[in-house]
């Protein structure tokens, strides 16, 4: 049988087996491989805030089984953004006008409205690849690279995650590291922080010889930002029905962390009214924000999946904290309710609460010294996000599954902070942001 002359012994073996079992010739085996080689996943997200940003985001993901426990995962994303986003200024009873750093793209805000920047439109393309391979007896490596580009932002990154199984594969230790390098090139160049925002109607838009001249303002060909992250985790199978995971992550960002489009209004210390710009071209005084150039963040993340007879509950909790004094809690709960016949409903609730960054200000006060850092970006303030939604999923045939979800998200914060001055007391300085999230997705196994 040391194959110098390969031969089929199957016939003889089958005959011998029949004799052994004392039965008639058995039926021929019928077994079809129901595993898959390629799995294709696609989704379309529609995100729309009331009166603000709208995002349409198709994603496609392909995962290939290359045999020998090697897998490759490819993902492509397009993200089309439109609409308007709060620029950090406070409402006023006067008409307000804002421009980009070199006076381009100006927009006007009616009185008593929360200033929203409608020049938000952008389309982003992103691609990522993840390579999974067993490295040794109990260790698997996941190596990834990703790339993302949009008009004013480019990001490239690599990541490596390594898992080690032990305890009869009931326990898995995970360690991960990721680096990314981002380039931020806002149109007109990144503005110098705490400089005045051009607001005159005659803001120098027509005078520009071209944006190239201004790229030097914020730095040669754009700003950069580097992010390094580490993750350590343990996954444990607790019982036949339960699995849990705890992760600790730490990351540091350094470089340009400021948002080049966000600003703060300077207001009169008594009336809370707008004040004239120091630059005679500027009607009112707004300053570009400034954030620190480093940020260290950490999180503790806990997840548990538990299966009842057929239904499954998914619960996660994350506690996050950083050196900007932001602390947050996130609780996410989903319940998969099986309807039988291969379809299911999955209600979802998410509750998020964060405390403000230590340089978050609703506005700056004229006459007071400008703080070291300041931002009025509402996303850095004391805030609560509540999301509630429902997903419906169904398996169609042997190969495919689709699901559809609709969710409602609401963000709210302190609308009337103690520090509001004069007229500002009459305004909602942290209006609720409400959004609907719709997603349809389709999964196909070849």
């Amino acid at each position, binding site marked *: 049988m040391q194959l110098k002359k390969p031969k089929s012994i199957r016939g003889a073996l089958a005959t011998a087996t029949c004799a052994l079992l004392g039965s008639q010739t058995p039926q021929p085996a019928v077994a079809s491989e129901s595993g898959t080689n390629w799995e294709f996943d696609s989704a379309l997200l529609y995100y729309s805030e009331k009166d603000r940003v709208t995002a349409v*985001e198709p994603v496609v*993901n392909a995962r290939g089984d290359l045999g020998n426990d090697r897998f490759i995962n490819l993902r492509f994303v397009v993200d089309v953004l439109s609409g308007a986003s709060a620029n950090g200024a406070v409402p006023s009873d006067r008409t307000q006008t804002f421009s980009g750093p070199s006076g381009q793209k100006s927009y006007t805000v009616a009185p008593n409205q929360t200033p929203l920047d409608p020049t938000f439109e952008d389309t982003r393309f992103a691609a990522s690849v993840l390579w999974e391979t067993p490295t040794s007896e109990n260790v698997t490596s996941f190596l990834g690279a990703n790339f993302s580009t949009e008009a004013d932002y480019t990001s490239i990154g690599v990541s490596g995650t390594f898992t080690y199984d032990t305890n009869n594969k009931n326990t898995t230790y995970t360690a991960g590291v990721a680096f990314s390098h981002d380039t931020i090139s806002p149109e007109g160049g990144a503005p110098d922080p705490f400089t005045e925002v051009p607001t005159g109607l005659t803001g120098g838009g027509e005078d520009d010889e071209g944006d190239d001249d201004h790229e030097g303002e914020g730095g040669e060909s754009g700003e950069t930002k580097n992010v390094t992250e580490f993750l350590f985790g343990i996954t444990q199978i607790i019982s036949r029905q339960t699995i849990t995971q705890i992760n600790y992550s730490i990351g540091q960002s350094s470089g340009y962390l400021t948002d080049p489009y966000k600003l703060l209004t300077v207001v009169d210390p008594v009336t809370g009214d707008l004040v004239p710009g120091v630059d005679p071209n500027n009607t009112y005084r707004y300053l570009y924000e400034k954030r620190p150039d480093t940020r260290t*963040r950490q999180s503790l993340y806990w997840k548990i999946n538990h299966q009842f007879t057929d239904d499954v509950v998914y619960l996660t909790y994350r506690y996050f904290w950083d050196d900007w004094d*932001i602390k947050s809690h996130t609780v996410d709960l989903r319940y998969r309710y099986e309807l039988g016949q291969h379809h299911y409903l999955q209600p979802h609730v998410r509750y998020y609460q964060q405390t403000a960054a230590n340089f978050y200000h609703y506005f700056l006060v004229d006459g007071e010294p400008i703080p070291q850092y300041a931002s009025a970006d509402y996303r850095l303030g004391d805030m609560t996000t509540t999301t509630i939604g429902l997903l419906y999923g169904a398996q169609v045939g042997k190969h495919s599954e689709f699901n559809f979800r609709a969710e409602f998200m609401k963000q709210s914060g302190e609308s009337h902070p103690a520090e509001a001055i004069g007229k500002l007391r009459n305004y909602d300085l942290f209006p609720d942001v409400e959004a609907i999230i719709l997603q349809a997705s389709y999964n196909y196994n070849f």
Partner: protein
Amino acid sequence: MVRIYLAFALLLILAQACSWQPVKPWERDLHAAKKMQLDPHPLESYLDEHIYFSKEASSGGAGVGGGGCGCN
């Protein structure tokens, strides 16, 4: 406040631990199903992570890497 949450989480895990016996390979049938994976809907998670990364000050927790964007 934080400590209370952490203690609670730990307690839940330890409470389960009392009934910890190593789970035998043939008892892991349920874990092979897609709905019991740690992340049964990875695209949904990716999209959600992107939304909340853009709209809140916190991010991550479940994994590392995945790319940046100009949304925050």
